[in-house]
């Protein structure tokens, strides 16, 4: 629409009139036109603004003025939205606020439970003590243990159900629990909730959340898009519901889009299995603690049994070894066991020990003792056991070979031929030995005496014919006699039993007996003079001449006669004991 233009030559008066006329004719239209144009301009501006608004806001992102300008409007919009229908806002906030609120409540409840636990803790009962032990053993808070024992339950099944359709998204069963037709059960649960809501009113948010059947409870946790139903046998503790709700929240967080666009395909929800398993596993974990505890206890008991059996057997064996060892020690002369006890795995034996007794440690192995198992604490002493006394006597007296020592009622008896020197020494030393009251060398002396006597009697000296002159080479015999007689004298002196030695002279068969008899006696006299210039202390010497009455050989040859011209010595038996002269 074009505006009429005035002719250029009109004066101002004409202009005014024309203007007035125009006002009268098209005034309302002009006003309307201006209004329309203004509106059109505004619309164009909005369009332009809309085109640049996102960029503009992005550019002013950090400008607090924009925030200040928008805040009241946004607040009002949120308020208006919440007043009109709170659900969209609640749905949007649910995944964020739900867990936070529940965590806060859980913590508050835990604190309450713990304080209750402290009160319970003060009650002393066998059960409480048992729980306390369990708590100490497992490291769980006492309250938790007590709760665990007072509430025995099991989560048997967990259903994740699409809220809108009642279709099953995922389903889990605890081992060894029956779970039939989860699809239809899932739908039926939804139907029952719907039925109750329809029948008794209330909003969708007020739907049934607990169903009880016998000792089973079905908890239905509700989220914006899904339900989590859990079948629990036994009294469920309240925190179990928190676990279910947590799991449901997690499912919503992870699967919000899949839930929103669910078209009957449950495949995307296979991945929430671990989340749902938390509901089962949490339960199983706690049961497992108890079971593990029981198993642990059983193992411990078994171990204790085996241990005590082992201990018993080894203790018995140990006691056997100890007994054997002690018996061996006690049987051993020169050892006196005063104390014996087990200490620090060692068998400590104390007492008295003669230095001549066997080494106690050497008996340990025979008794089955391990090396180092035995510790001896011995004090030395002189034992009076005959065996030890004999040992001591043998050590001290060093008897010559062929001489044996025995102890008879405190008397040390020497037997077997011992030379006079030894007998003299022994007779002096023996009575000084502990355990030796007397020394009896008689048997040894007599044996020596007998030996000497035989040696003496076995010898013979021969003479020249008709004289008292020795044939050459008889000195050796004479010296032997000298030596043996001296020894016999000492032996006789030691025993106090005198001996008699008879020196007998012989003649051969030549000549008359009247001549032979004196000759033989002279020969004996000769030998005595040569052998015994002085008297012997304990030997009485006699001489005799027997002529040819006791020939060594019967025969008439010169050799026979030469053998018969001789002197022999005869040693008499020891006289009864008497004081040595």
């Amino acid at each position, binding site marked *: 629409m074009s505006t009429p233009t005035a002719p250029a030559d009109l004066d101002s008066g004409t202009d005014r009139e024309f203007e007035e006329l125009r006002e009268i004719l098209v005034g309302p239209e002009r006003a309307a036109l201006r209004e329309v144009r203004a509106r059109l301009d505004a619309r164009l501006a909005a369009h332009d603004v809309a085109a640049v608004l996102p960029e503009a806001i992005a550019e002013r992102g950090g400008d607090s003025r924009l925030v200040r300008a928008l805040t009241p409007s946004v607040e009002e919009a949120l308020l208006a939205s919440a007043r009109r229908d709170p659900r969209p806002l609640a749905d949007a906030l649910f995944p964020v606020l739900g867990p936070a609120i529940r965590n806060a409540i859980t913590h508050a409840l835990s604190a309450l439970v713990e304080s209750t636990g402290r009160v319970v803790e003060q009650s002393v009962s066998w059960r409480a003590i048992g729980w306390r032990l369990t708590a100490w053993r497992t490291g769980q808070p006492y309250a938790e243990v007590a709760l665990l024992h007072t509430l025995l339950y099991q989560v048997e099944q967990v259903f994740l159900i*699409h809220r*809108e*359709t*009642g*279709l*099953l998204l995922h389903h889990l069963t605890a081992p060894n629990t029956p779970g*039939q*037709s989860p*699809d*239809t059960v899932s*739908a*039926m649960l939804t*139907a*029952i909730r*719907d*039925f109750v*809501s*329809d029948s008794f009113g209330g909003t969708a948010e007020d739907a049934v959340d607990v169903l009880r059947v016998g000792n089973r409870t079905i908890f239905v946790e509700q989220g914006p898009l899904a339900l989590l139903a859990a079948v629990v046998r036994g009294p469920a503790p309240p925190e179990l519901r928190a676990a279910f709700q947590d799991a449901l929240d997690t499912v919503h967080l992870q699967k919000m889009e899949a839930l929103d666009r669910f*078209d*009957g*395909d*449950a*495949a995307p929800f296979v991945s929430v299995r671990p989340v749902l398993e938390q509901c089962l596993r949490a339960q199983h974990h706690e049961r497992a603690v108890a079971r593990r505890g029981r198993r642990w206890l059983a193992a411990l008991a078994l171990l204790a049994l085996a241990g005590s059996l082992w201990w018993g057997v080894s203790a018995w064996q140990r006691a056997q070894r100890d007994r054997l060892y002690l018996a061996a020690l006690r049987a051993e002369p020169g050892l006196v066991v005063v104390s014996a006890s087990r200490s620090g795995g060692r068998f400590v034996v104390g007492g008295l020990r003669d230095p001549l007794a066997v080494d106690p440690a050497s008996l340990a192995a025979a008794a089955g003792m391990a090396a180092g198992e035995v510790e001896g604490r011995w004090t030395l002493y002189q034992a009076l056991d005959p065996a030890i006394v004999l040992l001591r006597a043998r050590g001290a007296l060093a008897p010559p070979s062929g001489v044996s020592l025995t102890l008879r009622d405190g008397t040390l008896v020497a037997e077997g031929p011992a030379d006079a020197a030894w007998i003299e020494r022994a007779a002096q030393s023996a009575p000084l030995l502990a355990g030796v009251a007397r020394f009896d060398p008689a048997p040894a002396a007599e044996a020596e005496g007998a030996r000497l006597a035989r040696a003496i009697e076995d010898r013979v000296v021969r003479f020249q014919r008709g004289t008292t002159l020795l044939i050459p080479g008889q000195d050796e015999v004479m010296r032997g006699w000298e030596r043996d007689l001296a020894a016999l004298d000492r032996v006789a002196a030691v025993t106090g039993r005198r001996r008699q030695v008879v020196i007998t002279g012989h003649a051969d068969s030549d000549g008359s007996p009247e001549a032979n008899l004196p000759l033989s006696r002279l020969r004996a006299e000769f030998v005595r003079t040569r052998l015994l210039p002085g008297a012997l202390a304990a030997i009485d010497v006699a001489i005799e001449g027997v002529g040819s009455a006791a020939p060594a050989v019967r025969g008439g040859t010169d050799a026979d006669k030469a053998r018969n011209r001789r002197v022999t010595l005869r040693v008499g038996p020891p006289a009864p004991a008497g004081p040595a002269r």
Partner: protein
Amino acid sequence: MISKKVCLLGGFAVGKTSLVARFVHGVFSEKYLTTIGVKIDKRSMTVDDDELDLVIWDIYGEDDYQRVRMSYLRGASGLLLVADGTRRDTLEVARALRLTARDHLGTIPSVLLVNKVDLRAAWEIGPEDLDVLREQGWRVFETSAKTGDGVEGAFAALARLLHEAR
């Protein structure tokens, strides 16, 4: 595995429950129908090598006016409408139920089962009635819960529709 919620709707005594009994081996007793007004069963089907589970909500109609609990319809992907061939009014009930369902769920795949084909002689519903419905886009099956005729076909048709609707 795809699951679909299917609602079974129909007038009084049209033989819905018997149809389901023909079609599935149920877990729940029929007493649920009269207690909470619904009985749920499941039937697994195969369409073009795809497994499809039909979770069938057999919704109890208290009377011919079908005061059906609408909450039971929520989330349904398909409808099985059932009429009794021997009672013309049941067809009207089915028509009304279809409209009600559409109000709540929008347009979703549905099939109509006109039951008691074994009693065809006593039918009040003529072939021309069914032709009219077919012209209006209804998928109509003549079934017999007694003999099993047409039942599988009707369910299979719905399953195919659901499969195609994905």
